[in-house]
C-alpha cells in the first residue's frame, strides 16, 4: 500500500518547476564512469593476489586450496575454531565441491526451511557458519551472498565463527560487476549481503574492536575450481 504519494510528489514537482510529477524514466547519460577502470584486465590469478593481500586489512584469515585439498583445509579450519556445532546452507555447490558428505558427517546442521525458527535457534548457538560466496570482490575482499529459503540471512551473522568458501571462478574485480549481475536478475533476492571480514566497531575511542554483533572471526577459503 502506498499512502500520501500524490501530494508529496506534487510538492517536489512544483519545487523543480514542473506542473505535474514526471512519470517518464529519465535517461542516465553519465559523463564519468571511473569504476570500470578499476582492476580492468586483471587476470584471475591477479585478482586472487589482490584479494589475499587485502585480507590482512580486514582481520580475515585466508587459505588457498585446490578442490582436492578442500576437504582437508576445511577440516583444519573447523579445528582452528575448535569444531563444535556447525551450520551450513543448502547449496548444490557443496556437493559439486565434494564436501557435502564431509560436512554432513560433522556435528552439523543444514539450513532447512521446513524447520522454521529452529534454524535461527541453531544458528544462534552454532560455533561455525559455513557458506559459499556467490560473487567475490577482489578489490575489497568481499563475499556476496543472496538469501533464499535454503540460505537464511542469519546463517552468516549469528555464529561466532564464519567460514566462506570462495570458488576462484566467483572472483570479479569489484562491486561494479556484482551490481551489473544483480541488475540482470529477473528477481532480486530479498537480502543481498556484501560481507567484508568479521563484524567490528571503532565506536570506543576509535579503537577497533572485532566481533561486535556478527561473527568474531572470519576465514576465507579460496578454491581453485577452474
Amino acid at each position: 500500500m502506498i499512502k500520501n504519494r500524490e501530494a508529496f510528489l506534487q510538492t517536489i514537482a512544483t519545487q523543480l518547476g514542473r506542473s505535474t510529477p514526471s512519470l517518464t524514466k529519465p535517461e542516465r547519460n553519465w559523463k564519468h564512469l571511473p569504476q570500470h577502470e578499476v582492476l580492468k584486465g586483471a587476470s584471475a590469478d591477479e585478482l586472487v593476489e589482490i584479494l589475499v593481500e587485502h585480507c590482512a586489512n580486514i582481520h580475515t584469515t585466508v587459505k588457498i586450496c585446490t578442490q582436492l585439498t578442500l576437504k582437508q583445509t576445511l577440516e583444519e579450519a573447523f579445528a582452528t575454531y575448535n569444531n563444535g556445532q556447525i551450520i551450513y546452507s543448502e547449496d548444490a555447490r557443496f556437493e559439486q565441491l565434494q564436501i557435502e558428505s564431509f560436512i554432513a558427517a560433522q556435528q552439523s546442521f543444514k539450513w532447512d526451511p521446513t524447520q522454521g525458527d529452529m534454524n535461527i535457534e541453531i544458528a544462534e548457538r552454532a560455533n561455525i557458519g559455513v557458506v559459499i560466496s556467490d560473487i567475490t570482490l577482489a578489490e575489497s575482499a568481499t563475499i556476496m551472498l543472496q538469501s533464499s529459503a535454503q540460505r537464511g540471512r542469519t546463517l552468516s551473522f549469528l555464529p561466532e565463527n564464519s567460514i566462506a568458501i570462495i570458488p576462484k571462478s566467483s572472483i570479479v574485480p569489484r562491486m561494479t560487476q556484482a551490481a551489473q549481475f544483480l541488475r540482470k536478475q529477473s528477481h532480486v533476492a530479498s537480502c543481498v549481503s556484501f560481507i567484508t571480514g568479521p563484524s567490528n566497531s571503532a565506536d570506543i575511542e576509535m579503537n577497533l574492536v572485532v566481533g561486535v554483533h556478527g561473527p568474531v572471526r572470519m576465514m576465507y577459503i579460496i578454491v581453485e575450481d577452474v
Partner: protein
Amino acid sequence: MAMKISKNKFNDRLSMNLDNDFMRSAVSSAQHRFQTRRSTAIESLDWEQWRNHGEEIRQHVLEHLDYYLYELSENVAARGGHVFFAKTAEEATNYITNIAKEKQAKKIVKSKSMVTEEINLNTHLEQLGCEVIETDLGEYILQLDDHDPPSHIVTPALHKNKEQIRDIFTEKIGYTASSQPEELAQHARQILRQDYLTADIGITGCNFAVAETGSVCLVTNEGNADLVAALPKTLISVMGLERIVPTFEEMEVLVSMLTRSAVGQKLTSYITVLTGIQEELDVDGPEEFHLVIVDNGRSSILGGEFQSILQCIRCAACVNVCPVYRHVGGHTYGSIYSGPIGAVLSPLLGGYDDYKELPYASTLCGACTDVCPVKIPLHQLLHKHREVIVEREGRAPISESLLMQAFGMGTSSQSIYRFGSKLASTAMKPFTSDDKISSGPGLLKNWTDIRDLPSPKKERFRDWFDTHSKGGRS
C-alpha cells in the same frame, strides 16, 4: 532526541565545550586518523573522476526526484512492502507509532539513523510504552547515558572516553569488567543479541534506496542493521526523501565513495541490500515491511540556491577536516548534524532562529568542499547563508574575524589562517566594522572573553592548541 540537541545558546555551548579537554583531544586525534585512512583508501583511484561521477549521479537524482520516488514506491509495493510519504516529522512519527500500537510492540530494536533522530522518533515510541534499543554501539552508549546527544555523524560517541563508558555500563547494565574496549563491546554484544531475538519491530535508516528494485541499502561495520532487519517480524525503514539512486550501478558507486570517505575502508564489513518482505519458505527476514519517506523541510530546499546540500551522502568527510569542528566539537553546533554539513543543513531544516550562528562556525577555508565526495560547494553555501542572515537581521550575529581570532587561528596557526583567509577576505567585507573586538555586545562578548581575558579557559585552550599545532597536525 530531536534535531535540536541543546536548549543553551550557541555561545554557552561553545564555552562549555571549550572547557572539555578530553573531547577536544579526542576530536583532534579522530580527525587525524579519519583523514589518514581516507587518503590511503582513495590513493589508488582517480578520485577526481569518482567525485565527478558521484556529483552527476546525485544531481541527476535531485533533478528527477519526483520520478525516482514514484518508481521506488511502485517497486517497494510490488515486493509486498508499504510506503508512507510523510510531509512532516509528525506525520512520520504518527505513522510509525500507529504500527507499534497495532503490533502491541513492547520492544523495538533500531540501527543507526540520523533521520529518526531528526524526527524525534524514539521519544514518541517511548511515550507509548515501548522499549526502544539503539543497537549501533556508539548510539547504544549514548542512549544508556541518559540520551547524551551525538557529537559526530559517523562515530556518535566520539566525545566519551573508555572510562566514562565503563562507568555508564556499570551504572546502567550491571557491567563489572574493565574499561578495555573489547570487554565493553563483548558485554554489549551479549545483551543486544537477546534484544534482537525478542524484539517485535526493527527500525533502520536507509543509506540508499534503489528506485529500480525498491531496495534499501544499509552500510555498517558492526552488522547490527542486518540483525535488526532479519529477526523482528516487522521492519520499518525511514529515509529522507533525497536518499535515492536509480539502480544498483549508481548505488555501488556511492557506497564505495561513502565507505572510503567516512571511514577509509574500501567497503565496510556489511553492505546489505534489502528488497521487500521475506519470500515463501524464508525463515528469517520481515513478514511486514514499511518504508517511510520523510520530507520535513527538504522539499523546500529543492529548486533553490541550497539544493546541492541534498546531494549529501552523510559521510562526515567534511566534519573530519573542519578546523572549527576540531576546536569546538560536535555538541557546540546544537544539532544532530554537526560540522560543515550541519552548519549548512541545520539552519535549512531547523530555521535561522535556532541556528543562525552556525554558518559563522567556519573559516570558509574550503577544506570541506575539497573533500566532499559529491562535490557540494559547502563553504559557498555557508557564505550564502551569511548573506541571507545579514539581509534578514540587518547584521551578522557574530563577526567572522572575531570568530577566527577566538579560536586562536589568526596568530597561533599560520597555515589555518592562510587557508581561512583565502576566501574569507571577500566573504568578510560586509562585517569589517565588527572587527573592533572590545565593543562586541551580546553574543560577541563571549568571543571577546575568550580572546582577551586571561581566563583559565583561555589558557587551557591555547596550551592545547599550541601543542597540537606544533605536532604538525593542525
